[in-house]
């Protein structure tokens, strides 16, 4: 067994529906058992990267994504589905099944893939919900929960099958400070108890740096910096320090690249 959970090499990608390159050759190495943070501005391609790790889009030629020892680009559909049984993913939006109650949402992967008796599945689902503090909401529908609560349900669903590799797309968004601390602790504990590997997309520098082993900083489709939290904090790179401190001034652009502002406003002295 190799000590690498996810190995991404020279990943370039553009969505089939839009002819714009989103990822410009990124390299990411995720050691087994580690918690790795993927950080960076919104629209920089983090969600796209984890979508490709789970094989939701075909990997273009020349790029390689190896997950748990299996090169995604060479797997057929059956192989991909077998690999996905070892993955758990928390979606950014959080993609709960709106026609199922919360408890059934969490039980869904168990019902689909295990032959366990109904009562056991129900108990397991309740235990996962308890871990995210929402056992009392098991009978409610996702639309009756707040955004942060839905995210916690999605988290319970992602861990329902005790996966080897966990992908969390913005697990902390919309959480109050107390929930945030609890969920961060939960992610850390899961990693230790299940022996799994986690990739977290997040914007919360303080909370993330406390639990992760490695940080990758992405900007506009490229990895612009990486290292341990301590290395990132100590980094003299103006880009890294601007991101960590969230300052407005610095080399990182806030605006989407485009035409000249003054020309868009049709000012007389526009170039």
């Amino acid at each position, binding site marked *: 067994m190799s000590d690498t959970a996810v190995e991404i090499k020279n990943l370039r990608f553009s969505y089939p529906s839009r002819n714009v390159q989103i990822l410009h050759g990124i390299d990411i190495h995720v050691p087994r058992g580690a918690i790795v943070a993927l950080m960076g501005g919104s629209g920089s391609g983090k969600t796209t990267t984890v979508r490709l790790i*789970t094989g939701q889009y075909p990997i273009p030629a020349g790029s390689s994504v190896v997950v748990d020892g299996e090169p995604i680009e060479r797997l057929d559909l059956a192989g991909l589905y077998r690999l*996905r049984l070892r993955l758990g*993913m928390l979606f950014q939006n959080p*993609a709960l*099944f*709106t026609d199922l109650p919360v408890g059934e949402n969490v039980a869904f*992967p168990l019902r*689909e893939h295990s032959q366990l008796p109904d009562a056991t599945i129900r108990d397991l689902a309740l235990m996962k919900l308890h871990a995210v503090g929402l056992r009392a909401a098991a009978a409610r529908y996702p639309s009756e929960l707040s955004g942060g609560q839905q995210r916690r349900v999605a988290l319970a669903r992602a861990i329902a099958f005790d996966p080897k590799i966990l992908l969390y797309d913005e697990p902390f968004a919309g959480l109050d400070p107390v929930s945030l601390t609890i969920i961060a602790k939960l992610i850390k504990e899961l990693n230790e108890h299940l022996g799994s590997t986690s990739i977290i997309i997040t914007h919360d520098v303080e909370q993330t740096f406390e639990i992760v082993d490695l940080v990758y900083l992405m900007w506009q489709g490229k990895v612009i910096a990486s290292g341990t939290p301590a290395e990132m904090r100590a980094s003299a790179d103006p880009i890294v320090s601007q991101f960590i401190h969230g300052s407005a001034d610095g080399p990182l652009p806030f605006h989407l690249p*485009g035409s000249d502002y003054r020309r868009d406003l049709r000012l007389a002295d526009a170039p």
Partner: protein
Amino acid sequence: MNEGRDSSLGRSRRRKGVIPAIRRLGWPLVEKTYFLGTFARFCWMIAARVPGCLKRPRLVWVQVYHLGTLSLPIIIVAGLFIGLVIGLQFHTILDRYGQTQVVGAAVAIALFRELGPVFAGLLFIGCSCTAVTASIGLKRSSEQFAAMEVMAVDPLEREIAPRFVAGALCLPLLTVILLAVAITGTYAIVVLQIGMDEGFFWGNMQRFTKFFGDFTEGLLKSVVFGVMSSAIALYHGYSARPTAEGVARATTNTVVYASLTLLGLDFVITSLLAS
């Protein structure tokens, strides 16, 4: 980056000239052909998954229940009015020829062969198929299908195929219900209201209406309509653009395409069986 010059932000202007004109002519054709191709492929993908989903009949029954209950009230009310109106009309027409004793049979034949399956089909499209398109479109746009795929569950088998089978089962059932209610409506107007002899009404209906021929033709139609309208509804939901407008448009398209196809197929089946 030149698009920004237009004062309308992001809206492209219609180009003039010969080549763009030809392009505008040809594009709808290409689009329609493309639509037929993707629709055929989609149908094939569902068909391949029907055996798998039949292994889990519970999923199908849940959908039969949903789709059926959506259309049932309107099917019953509509059936009653159709029966009342057809009974009244046929009685008026047959009265001119002094043939009112066969009104029961005439109404039954018209309902079984034509009106029952077509009305039930159109109502089913309006009530259940639109709901299918909207819910599939929303599930897809909120990444629920992507979430399923990442959990190694095939959404086509788990969500689409059961709805397809359920639609194909539901419409014949609803058609039979509509027929029964409509006949009751005719009975109410012709026998109870106008005062025709009850024995004549039921007796002639039994004598002149054929189970094989009249009833089976209608049943065959309703099965074909059920298969067709569920496939169209699912296709439009599944291929809807992941926005509110996209789903709205897909729902409209379901009604338009499914209704027109239903009426066209109705003619085709009738003429095939008549020859």
